[in-house]
C-alpha cells in the first residue's frame, strides 16, 4: 500500500500540494485514520470517503461537509488533545489535523449514524419557524417543568468543556500604517505596494498559507508563475522586509472605532506537541492608520429540496479539496449550478479522473465557451434544468433532475453533488467599520459604498472580478507603485439568490437556506405570511443567519426569498447587521493574561507579608487585601476579634492603616481650596493640628470622610477612605482644574508613599515613645488631633495623634519602604507589654462602640452629614462649598429623614444582622412599612453585649422607642439609642 492510499482511498496521486510521506494519525468517533500534514479534518475524512460529520440543530438531519473554510455551517466537531483540552463546535474545514487528535461528532445520541434525535425530522411539520411561540403555554407550569427543559436539552450543539483550561493565551498590541485583511491576490498585491513605500504593514490571513482563492484556482498565473506559487514567493519576500508583518492562521475578527482591529492568531491548535511556553492563541489589538480589506467572497449553495445531504458541497470547496489537498469528493459527481465557477470545478475533477455525472445548470444558456469545454472533456451539460430532489440517507446517492418549468424528470446516481449559486462578497469587516453598502442589482450583491473610516476594499469583496482591474485597485490601495501582470483563463458570470426553480412546493419540501439551524425556504415564507416584513424580524423569527456561521451562506438567500414574498426590491428589504466577530473567538484569547492574580492585581500594603506571617486572615476591601483578624491557635473569628477588642482597650493594639487614601494638598491657597471641597472650615485649623473632614458632592450627600492634618500654612495631609482615594482625587482635580483654576494648589496622591502604623490603647504612648524623635508626645504637648513631622526610628515620619477607637492613639506615617522595619520594631516592643495586632474587624467593632461611622457602610450615597449625626461638621459660616446648595433642597431638609442612631437589642446576647430592616409593627401585613435598616451590628466584648448602628426614619426623635427587626427566622426587639456605646464621656481618648 502506498503512502497516498494509506492516507485515504479518495486521495488522487499527483493532485494537491501535500507531501504523501508526511502523515499524521487521528481518530474520528473512535475510529483511527491517517491524514497528511496540511490536511484539515474535513479533507482528511473526505480522503477516506467519510462525508457524514454531524447532525443539524433542530431536526438532527445527517450532515456533511459543505465548504472548505470558515463559513462551514454543518461540519462542526469536537476536538481534543486530552480531557482538559477539549474544544466543542470546531469547524472541520478549518481545523488542521495534528498527530494524535481525537475528533468526535456532536449533537447525536447514541451515535452519529443512529441518532434518536432524528425523530424530530419526522415531526418537522409541527416544528415550523416560530412554532414555540404558539404553544407550550398550557398548563402554565408545564413550560418551566416540562417543555423548556426538553427544548434546552434538544438544542445546543457541542458539549461545554468540563475542566479548567490548562492552556495559556497571549496578548499583543501593535500600531501600523496599513493593515491588510486577506492575503489573496488582492491582499498580497496591496501589501507589496504598501511595503514599497516604507510604511509599516500588517498582512493578515486566516488560512495556514497565503493565497486565498489561489488555493483552488489553478487557472490564474501572475508574472508567468502559477498563482499559488507566486503567492508563496511574495509572502516570503514580504516576510523578509523589516516593515512588514505577515500573520497567517490569523483572523481579523473585529473592526472597531478609530482604526482599532481585533485579530486572533491560532498558534498551536495545529501542532501535535506544542511547546509548553507557546500560547494556544494570541490576541492582537492593532491600531491601523489605514485598513485595506481584501477579504474576498464566499460561494453560496443552491436552495432546493433536500439540499443538505452529506456529499453535497460547494463547488469551490470540492476544488480546494482536489487542487490543494489532493482529495476527490466522490467518484461519481453531479454538478448543480447557476454560476460559471462550478464548471471549473467539474473540469478539474474530470481531468483528475473523477466521473462527472452531469452539469445541471439552471440557466438556459451558459454560453458556448463553457459548453465547448465541457464537450471536449466529455461532460454532459443540462442547461435550463434544475435539481429538484436528492436521494440517500447518510450520504447522497442520487439527484433528481428536471427541465425548468417541469417535465423530463430523471434520477441520476451520484455519490457527491457540487453546487454553486454564485459568490457573496465578504463585506463583514466593512460593515463592522460602520460603512454603508449599496446593492449591485446586476450581480445581485451588496458592495461597499460609503466608508466611515480610513479604509478601502479591494478585489472580489469590492465586486472587482477582473484580474487586471483587481491588481490595479490593490496597487492603488497600497499607495506604492509595483508592476504585476496577471492572467486568468476564465471570466466568471452568473449567479442567483433565493430558492432555485424546481425547489418544489412548500408542503413537502425541505430546501435549506440556513443549514445549521435547519431554516428552510418555507420557513422564511411563513415568517413573511405572519407579518414579519423587516429582514430583522424574519431573521429573528426563523433564526436564519443566527447560527455559528452567522449567515455567511444563508443571508442572501433568505433575503431574496423574503423579497420575493414581499414583492419588494432587495435593497428595500435590507440586510441584517454584520457584527463582530467574523468567526467565533475563544474567551480565553480575549482574556489573555487577565486571569487569577492578574485578573485584577491585588493591592497589598508594605506590611502584608509581616501580617501574613502573624497568621492574619485577609479580606478584600476594594482591590486591597487588608488584614481582617489574627486568629491564634484554636480561635475562631469571633474569639479572635473579642480578644483583640479587649486587648486594645485594656492594653493597646497595632493596626495597619496603610490603605487609607492620602492626598498631599499644597500651595498658598490650599486652605481655601479645602474650604470649597469639604463642608468644614479649614482657615481656623492651625499648623500642627488635624481635623475630621466631611466631603459632599454638589448634591449634598456624604461622599467621603477622613482626617486632614495641617503641616504648614500651605501644606495639608488629607486622608480619605480606603476605597475612595482615586475618586476623591479625581473629584478634587476636577474642581481645581475647571472650576477653581485661579487657586494656587497642587494635589499629589501619596497613598502608596506612606505606610501607616496605628497604635491605639492606653499603652500606646508607652509603646511608641522610645522610637519618636523631634517631637514631645506628652499629652500636654501633643494632645488629641495633633500632627507633627518628626522621625521614628530615625526615619522621617508624620505622626498623628488620632483615634478611630476612642482610645489614646497614634498613627505613624513613614515612607512605605521603611514600613516593615518600623512595624516590626513597634510590634516587638508592643507584644511583651501585652498588646495585640488587630485587623479591620476589630477596628470596625471598636469604632462602632464609639459611634464613629464608616462611609459606604453606615452611609450609602443618600445620607447627608446631618443624617449621619455630623451636622456639626458643616460650617454655617462659609458662603460656598461644594454641596452647599444641594443640602438645602426640599427633600434634604424635610422632617422624618432617615438618621443614624444606635440600636440595642432587648436581648443583649442577640447580634442583629447587618442589612436587617426595621419596622414599628412586626405583625403588619406585607408589604410592610420599613423605617430603615441596620448598617452595623457586632458583638461588643467591651460592652458585654451586642451593639448596632442603624438608619431610621426620624431616628433621633425616636430615641427610647422600641422597634423591631424581623429576620428570616425570628423578629428581634430593639431600643433606639444614641450612637455611643462605650466611654460615653469620651475621656479615654485624651489619656
Amino acid at each position: 500500500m502506498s503512502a497516498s492510499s494509506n492516507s485515504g482511498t479518495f486521495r488522487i496521486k499527483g493532485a494537491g500540494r501535500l507531501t504523501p510521506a508526511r502523515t499524521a494519525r487521528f481518530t474520528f468517533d473512535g475510529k483511527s485514520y491517517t491524514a497528511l500534514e496540511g490536511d484539515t479534518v474535513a479533507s482528511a475524512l473526505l480522503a477516506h470517503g467519510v462525508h457524514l460529520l454531524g447532525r443539524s440543530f433542530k431536526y438532527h438531519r445527517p450532515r456533511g461537509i459543505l465548504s472548505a473554510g470558515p463559513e462551514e455551517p454543518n461540519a462542526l466537531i469536537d476536538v481534543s488533545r486530552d480531557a482538559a483540552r477539549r474544544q466543542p463546535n470546531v469547524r472541520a474545514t478549518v481545523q488542521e489535523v495534528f498527530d494524535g487528535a481525537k475528533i468526535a461528532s456532536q449533537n447525536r445520541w447514541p451515535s452519529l449514524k443512529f441518532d434518536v434525535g432524528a425523530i424530530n425530522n419526522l415531526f418537522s411539520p409541527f416544528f415550523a419557524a416560530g412554532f414555540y411561540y404558539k404553544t407550550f403555554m398550557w398548563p402554565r407550569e408545564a413550560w418551566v417543568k416540562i417543555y423548556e427543559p426538553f427544548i434546552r436539552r434538544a438544542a445546543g450543539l457541542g458539549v461545554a468543556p468540563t475542566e479548567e483550561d490548562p492552556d495559556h493565551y497571549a496578548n499583543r498590541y501593535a500600531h501600523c500604517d496599513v493593515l491588510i485583511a486577506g492575503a489573496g491576490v488582492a491582499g498580497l498585491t496591496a501589501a507589496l505596494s504598501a511595503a514599497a513605500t516604507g510604511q509599516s504593514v500588517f498582512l493578515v490571513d486566516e488560512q495556514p498559507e497565503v493565497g486565498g482563492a489561489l488555493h483552488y484556482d489553478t487557472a490564474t498565473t501572475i508574472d508567468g508563475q502559477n498563482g499559488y506559487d507566486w503567492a508563496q514567493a511574495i509572502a516570503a519576500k514580504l516576510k523578509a522586509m523589516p516593515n512588514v508583518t505577515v500573520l497567517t492562521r490569523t483572523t481579523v475578527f473585529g473592526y472597531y472605532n478609530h482604526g482599532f482591529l481585533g485579530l486572533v492568531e491560532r498558534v498551536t491548535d495545529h501542532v501535535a506537541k506544542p511547546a509548553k511556553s507557546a500560547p494556544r492563541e494570541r490576541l492582537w489589538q492593532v491600531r491601523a492608520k489605514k485598513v485595506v480589506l481584501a477579504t474576498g467572497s464566499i460561494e453560496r449553495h443552491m436552495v432546493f429540496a433536500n439540499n443538505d445531504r452529506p456529499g453535497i458541497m460547494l463547488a469551490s470547496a470540492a476544488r480546494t479539496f482536489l487542487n490543494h489537498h489532493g482529495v476527490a469528493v466522490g467518484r461519481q459527481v453531479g454538478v448543480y449550478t447557476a454560476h460559471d465557477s462550478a464548471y471549473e470545478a467539474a473540469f478539474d475533477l474530470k481531468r483528475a479522473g473523477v466521473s462527472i455525472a452531469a452539469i445541471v445548470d439552471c440557466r438556459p444558456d451558459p454560453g458556448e465557451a463553457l459548453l465547448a469545454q465541457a464537450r471536449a472533456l466529455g461532460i454532459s451539460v443540462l442547461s435550463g434544468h434544475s435539481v429538484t430532489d436528492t436521494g440517500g440517507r447518510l450520504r447522497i446517492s442520487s439527484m433528481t433532475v428536471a427541465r425548468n418549468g417541469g417535465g423530463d424528470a430523471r434520477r441520476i446516481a451520484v455519490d457527491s453533488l457540487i453546487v454553486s449559486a454564485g459568490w457573496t462578497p465578504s463585506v463583514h469587516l466593512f460593515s463592522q467599520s460602520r460603512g454603508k453598502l449599496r446593492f449591485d442589482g446586476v450581480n445581485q450583491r451588496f458592495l461597499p459604498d460609503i466608508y466611515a473610516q480610513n479604509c478601502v476594499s479591494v478585489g472580489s469583496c469590492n465586486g472587482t472580478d477582473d484580474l487586471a482591474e483587481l491588481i490595479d485597485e490593490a496597487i492603488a490601495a497600497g499607495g506604492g507603485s509595483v508592476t504585476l501582470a496577471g492572467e486568468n483563463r476564465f471570466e466568471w458570470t452568473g449567479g442567483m439568490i433565493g430558492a432555485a426553480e424546481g425547489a418544489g412546493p412548500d408542503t413537502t419540501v425541505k430546501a435549506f437556506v440556513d443549514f445549521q439551524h435547519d431554516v428552510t425556504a418555507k420557513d422564511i415564507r411563513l415568517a413573511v405570511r405572519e407579518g414579519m416584513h423587516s429582514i430583522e424580524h424574519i431573521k429573528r423569527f426563523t433564526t436564519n443567519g443566527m447560527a455559528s456561521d452567522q449567515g455567511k451562506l444563508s443571508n442572501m438567500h433568505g433575503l431574496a426569498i423574503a423579497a420575493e414574498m414581499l414583492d419588494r426590491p432587495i435593497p428595500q428589504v435590507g440586510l441584517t447587521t454584520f457584527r463582530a466577530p467574523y468567526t467565533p473567538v475563544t474567551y480565553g484569547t480575549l482574556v489573555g493574561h487577565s486571569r487569577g492574580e492578574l485578573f485584577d492585581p491585588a493591592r497589598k500594603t508594605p506590611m502584608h507579608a509581616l501580617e501574613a506571617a502573624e497568621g492574619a486572615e485577609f479580606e478584600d476591601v476594594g482591590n486591597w487585601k487588608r488584614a481582617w483578624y489574627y486568629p491564634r491557635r484554636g480561635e475562631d473569628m469571633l474569639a479572635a476579634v473579642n480578644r483583640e477588642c479587649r486587648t486594645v482597650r485594656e492594653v493597646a493594639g497595632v493596626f495597619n492603616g496603610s490603605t487609607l487614601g492620602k492626598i498631599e494638598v499644597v500651595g498658598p491657597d490650599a486652605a481655601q481650596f479645602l474650604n470649597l471641597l469639604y463642608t468644614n472650615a479649614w482657615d481656623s485649623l492651625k499648623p500642627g493640628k488635624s481635623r475630621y473632614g466631611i466631603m459632599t458632592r454638589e448634591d449634598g450627600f456624604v461622599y467621603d470622610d477622613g482626617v486632614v492634618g495641617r503641616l504648614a500654612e500651605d501644606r495639608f495631609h488629607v486622608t480619605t477612605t480606603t476605597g475612595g482615594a482615586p475618586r476623591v482625587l479625581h473629584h478634587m482635580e476636577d474642581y481645581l482644574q475647571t472650576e477653581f483654576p485661579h487657586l494656587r494648589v497642587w494635589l499629589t496622591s501619596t497613598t502608596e508613599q506612606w505606610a501607616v502604623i496605628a497604635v491605639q490603647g492606653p499603652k500606646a504612648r508607652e509603646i511608641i515613645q522610645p522610637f519618636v524623635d523631634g517631637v514631645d508626645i506628652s499629652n500636654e504637648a501633643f494632645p488629641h488631633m495633633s500632627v507633627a513631622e518628626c522621625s521614628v526610628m530615625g526615619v522621617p515620619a508624620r505622626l498623628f495623634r488620632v483615634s478611630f477607637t476612642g482610645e489614646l492613639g497614634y498613627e505613624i506615617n513613614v515612607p512605605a519602604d521603611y514600613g516593615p522595619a518600623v512595624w516590626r520594631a513597634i510590634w516587638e516592643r508592643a507584644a511583651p507589654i501585652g498588646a495585640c495586632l488587630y485587623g479591620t474587624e476589630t477596628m470596625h467593632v471598636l469604632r462602632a462602640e464609639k459611634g464613629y461611622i464608616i462611609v459606604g457602610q453606615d452611609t450609602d450615597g443618600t445620607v447627608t452629614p446631618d443624617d449621619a449625626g455630623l451636622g456639626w461638621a458643616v460650617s454655617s459660616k462659609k458662603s460656598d462649598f461644594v454641596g452647599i446648595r444641594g443640602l438645602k433642597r426640599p427633600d434634604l431638609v424635610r422632617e422624618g429623614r432617615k438618621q443614624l442612631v444606635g440600636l440595642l437589642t432587648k436581648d443583649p446576647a442577640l447580634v442583629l444582622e447587618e442589612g436587617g430592616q426595621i419596622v414599628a409593627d412586626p405583625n403588619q401585613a406585607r408589604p410592610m412599612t420599613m423605617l430603615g435598616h441596620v448598617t452595623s451590628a457586632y458583638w461588643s466584648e467591651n460592652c458585654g453585649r451586642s451593639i448596632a448602628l442603624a438608619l431610621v426614619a426620624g431616628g433621633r426623635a425616636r430615641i427610647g422607642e422600641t422597634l423591631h427587626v424581623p429576620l428570616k427566622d425570628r423578629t428581634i426587639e430593639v431600643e433606639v439609642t444614641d450612637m455611643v456605646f462605650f466611654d460615653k464621656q469620651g475621656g479615654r481618648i485624651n489619656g
Partner: protein
Amino acid sequence: MLLIHCPYCEEDRSELEFRWAGEAHIARPENIAAISDEEFAEYFFLRNNEKGLTYERWRHIHGCGRFFNAARDTVSDRFLTTYKAGMPKQLLPETGASEKTVETYEATEGDAR
C-alpha cells in the same frame, strides 16, 4: 476603543488612558448658594445628551492628568477637535458633523442604496 488627542500632551492616545467627564461648558453658578431648586436641578442634572455634535470633557487621567474639552459626533463617535480646558467653545457647524456622519448601519437598515 476610541483614539483621543490630548491637547496638552499633543498625542493621540488610546481611550484606556482617559476618563470621560460629562458635558462641557457647564459652569458652576457663582452664586450657587442663592439659586433656586429649579436652577440647581438644571445645573446639576440636566444635560443636552446630543445626538450629533456634542461638547464634552475628558481627563487624561493615566497621562498628564489634565481635563480638556472635545467636540465629538455621538453618532459616528468621530472627534472633530479637542481643546484645552478654559478655552471657549470651539464652534463647529452642526452640519459639518452630520455631513460626514455615517449613521449606524442598523439605524438605516432596509435602506441600503
